[in-house]
Each structure stands twice: as C-alpha cells, then as structure tokens.
C-alpha cells in the first residue's frame, strides 16, 4: 500500500459580501508506507483535521492530490469504487460519543462494516464477535446496547473493533484517545500496535499531543497554520528541531522528568 499526498490545499471562503479566504491547509505533502505509524501533530486550527478529511475523501481539496495505491481518490466515483477505498482507508474519530448515532444500538457500527468485506451475513455474527474479543470486549457486555449505556473507553474500543473487521491498510485516527480516561488510554493504544503487528496496518495519528506522537510514531510531522513545518523521527524532532515553532512547542510542553527553567 502507498499513500501519497501531494501539494494538498484547502481554502475556505466565508462571508457573504466581504468574502474572506481562510487557508486551512497550505501545500501539504507527505507519504505513508505500509506498517508505519505517522503522527500529524498540531494545535487546534493547524489544519490537521481538514487534511485528514481530505485524505478520507470526505472533503474536497481546493487543489493537490491524494493518491492511494496508484489511484487518485477523487477519480473514484462509483459506489463500488468508493467501497474499495474505504475498505482500505478507514477512520477512527476523536469523540467516542459523536461517532455513534444515538438512536441506534452500537451493533450497527460493526454490522454495517461487514458490507465492506467479502463474506457477509452468514458469518457476520462470528466476525463481529471475534473483532470484539480482539479489542478485549465481551459481546454480551456491549452488543444490544445503546451508545449512552457504554463508557467512552468501551465505545472507542468498538470503533477499533470495526477496524479489526475491515482490516484496512491505512487508518486515520483523529485524537483517538484524548477523550477517554487516562487509565484506559494505554490499552486502546496497544490495540493500534496489535493492528500493526498482525495486519501491517499503517496509522496516521492526528493529535495535538506531542507526547503521544513521540511515544508511538515512526515519524512525526508538525503542522502549523496549514503547513508542515517539521518532519522527522521522534528523536530528531525532539532532540534537534529545526523550525522555530517546533522549538517553542518542545519548550512549552510540560515534562515529567525535568522542570521548566525559571518557573
């Protein structure tokens, strides 16, 4: 699998009379190889979520291209082409509550994913059960329940279970652990590692948390004002940052093993 993002741009136009242009994503280029964890790190407003939506083919870029396995994603128009794409590139979003339709049981999130894989209804139940086991949940505990009846951690795990059903080559995880309790975060992160080990899944982590990015990524990309200002391995970015924004970020992140100077 290969993902090539080239010169991606997104301009939002706001206002009725005085049209103002907001350059949300400004000439972003990068690529992702199989089985690699890449983090797109930036504060809110840096353009990282917009970039993610464009890669997921949920938002149309103003210019630039997203090429997956040699195909330009915006050339894919028919429903079976789109299904092929989303079987290979999938997403896990930040808010484990908003990702579910509150009026449906959580089963739907899992069963609707079966449409993307070859064997459907006959073995559907066992596929779903197996996926839930992979993420450490028991079917009896979660199937048949509504989203509000489960905890944030459980909901997020079910989202990951969906990925265990689909087994995409690439996952875009938008702040996958920021809205769940600290005590369950590590176990959800481990699930991503499991996907990587078992299926060589690549993950693009979208996050503001430099610590998370440092811990889990093979490569970090720092985004600021719609541009990628720094690219490199976690050690390179933290030990030898080139860009002033990265340097400032590194200085301002609260650390556990050293104290800020002059505080």
């Amino acid at each position, binding site marked *: 699998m290969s993902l090539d993002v080239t010169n991606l741009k997104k301009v939002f136009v706001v206002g009725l009379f005085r049209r103002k242009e907001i350059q949300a994503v400004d000439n972003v280029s990068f690529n992702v190889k199989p089985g690699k964890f890449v983090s797109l790190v930036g504060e809110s407003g840096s353009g990282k979520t917009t970039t993610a939506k464009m890669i997921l083919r*949920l938002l149309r870029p103003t210019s630039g291209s997203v090429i997956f396995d040699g195909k330009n994603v915006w050339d894919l128009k028919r429903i079976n082409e789109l299904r092929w794409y989303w079987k290979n590139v999938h997403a896990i979003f930040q808010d484990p509550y908003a*990702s*579910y339709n509150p009026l449906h049981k959580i089963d739907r999130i899992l069963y609707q*994913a079966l*449409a993307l894989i070859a064997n459907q209804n006959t073995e559907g139940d066992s596929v779903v059960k197996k996926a839930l086991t992979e993420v450490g949940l028991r079917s009896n505990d979660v199937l048949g329940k509504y989203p509000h009846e489960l905890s944030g951690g459980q909901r997020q795990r079910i989202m990951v279970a969906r990925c265990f059903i689909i087994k995409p080559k690439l996952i875009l995880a938008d702040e996958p652990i920021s809205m769940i309790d600290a005590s369950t975060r590590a176990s959800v992160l481990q699930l991503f590692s499991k996907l990587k080990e078992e299926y060589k899944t690549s993950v693009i982590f979208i996050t503001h948390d430099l610590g998370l990015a440092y811990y889990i990524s093979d490569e970090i990309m720092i985004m600021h004002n719609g541009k990628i200002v720094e690219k490199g391995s976690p050690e390179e970015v933290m030990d030898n940052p080139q860009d002033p924004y990265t340097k400032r970020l590194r200085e301002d992140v609260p650390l556990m093993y050293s104290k800020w100077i002059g505080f």
Partner: protein
Amino acid sequence: MVPPIIKDLFKIKKFDISLALFVGIMLTGVFGSILYNVNPLAAVGPPEQPPSDRFPLGTNSWGRDNLALLLSGIESSIYIGLTAALISIAIGVTIGVISGFKSGLTDSSLMLVTDVVLVLPSILIMMLIAAYLKERNPFFVSIIIGLTSWPWVARAVRSQMMSLKTREFMYMSRMAGLRDMRIIVEDLLPNMMSYVFMAFVLLMSGAMIAEAGLSMIGLGVTKGTSLGIILYWAQILEAVRRGLWWWFIPPGVCLVALATSLLLLSTALDEYFSPRLKGG
C-alpha cells in the same frame, strides 16, 4: 413493549392535559355525530330557537340543529387540519431533506422556491385559489392550506440536516459505503423525528385556524360544514349582535380549545426533546 419515550412523555402533565383536551373534543365530534343522529344540514325545526330539550344548542337561521352542526364541524375542522398538516409536512420535509443533504445548486434552487412561497401572502393565494374553485370540499381546502404552509418546515428541516451532516456518525455510515438514501433514512431522519412531530402538531393547529380564516371571508368549504363556516354564518346573520350566544360561543370555544391544546402539546414536546437534543 411500549417504547420508553412514550412512557416518559405521558409523565409530563402538560402533555397529558393538552392531549386529553384535544382527543376529548375530537372524540366528542366523532362519536357525537354517530350518537346524536341528526342531519346537520337539514332543517329540523323552527329557525333561531334558543337551547331547549329538543335542541340542546338551539337552531340557526335555517332551522338547522346547532349541536349537530357543531359535532359535524368539529370532525370537519380536524379533518382539514390533519390533511393540510400532512400535505405541508410531506412537502416541507422532502424539500428540507434534499436541500440540506445535497447542498450546492440543488440547495440554492430549492431554497429559492421556498423563499418565494414563504414571501407570497398566503391569504391572497388561498383566496385566489379558493375563489377559482366554485365547489370546495374539505379536501380541496386542505390542499389550499397545505400548499402554502410548508416553507418554514422546509427551512427548519434543512438546518437540522446541515448540522447533522457533519456529525461524525455520518462519516462512519458514509465510509461503510452506504448509499445516500439509506443514510438519510437510517441516520438522519430518525434524529429529526422529534422535530418533525412537533412541526406536525403546530401545522395542524395553524391549519385549523387558517380554515376558520378562509371561512370567515367566505372562502371555506361549500360542501358540508366546519367550525369556521358556522362562525361565518353566525357573523353574517348578525348572531353576535343579536346575542344568540348558543350559535357562536360553542363553536368558537371548541376551535380555540382545539388550536390551543395543540399548541400546548407542541410546547410540551419541545420541552421534552430540547434538553435531549442538546445533551446528546
């Protein structure tokens, strides 16, 4: 067996009272006409009689039984209210859903149509259509009212659609490869049902009042009767000035009670649903 939402709704006093009032009057009309077996449009006694044992609400200027007229009028007004509301809801929701979901050119053109209908003075339109149709049965009157009352529903439904469209669960359904129609039916409409229901109740209330309005200017039903028609004749034949209260007070009270009970019902629903919509 009963969905919890229904149980919860019945716990609200406002809901119970307003629903009881509306259903009470409606059933009086429906069963009353059957039990009180008098032809409302036939002359059955001397004209302009005050209430008596034989004619509990007296008679009107043509010797028709006022009580029979009232019961038939209740049925008719509710029928018109219901039908007009159904027509408006159907048009409003369809346009709102398509407009909100599709956006772009489709959205702009649909909203243009909506705005035009919104801005047109509905009374004049209704008058024009009504005057053109010499024979107006209750169904036609419903259509007239239904075709002019939907714009606000379309706009409101469209806003809801637009805000729901960017919720993450929408993305999850899209990425599961579901077709648009399925996403609309399975994901979006259920989340709007509470609003649609409220809009329906409000439309019904408005339609009954609109019917009375049309009737008061002589453009109501020509076949049968309705609360508005009764009031129209009462006014034309100076029943008000002459103090023939048994003619116009009962239908007036019933009309107000029906419309108000529906309005109350819609506020009860609003109170119940709003915190939920926000809480999520």
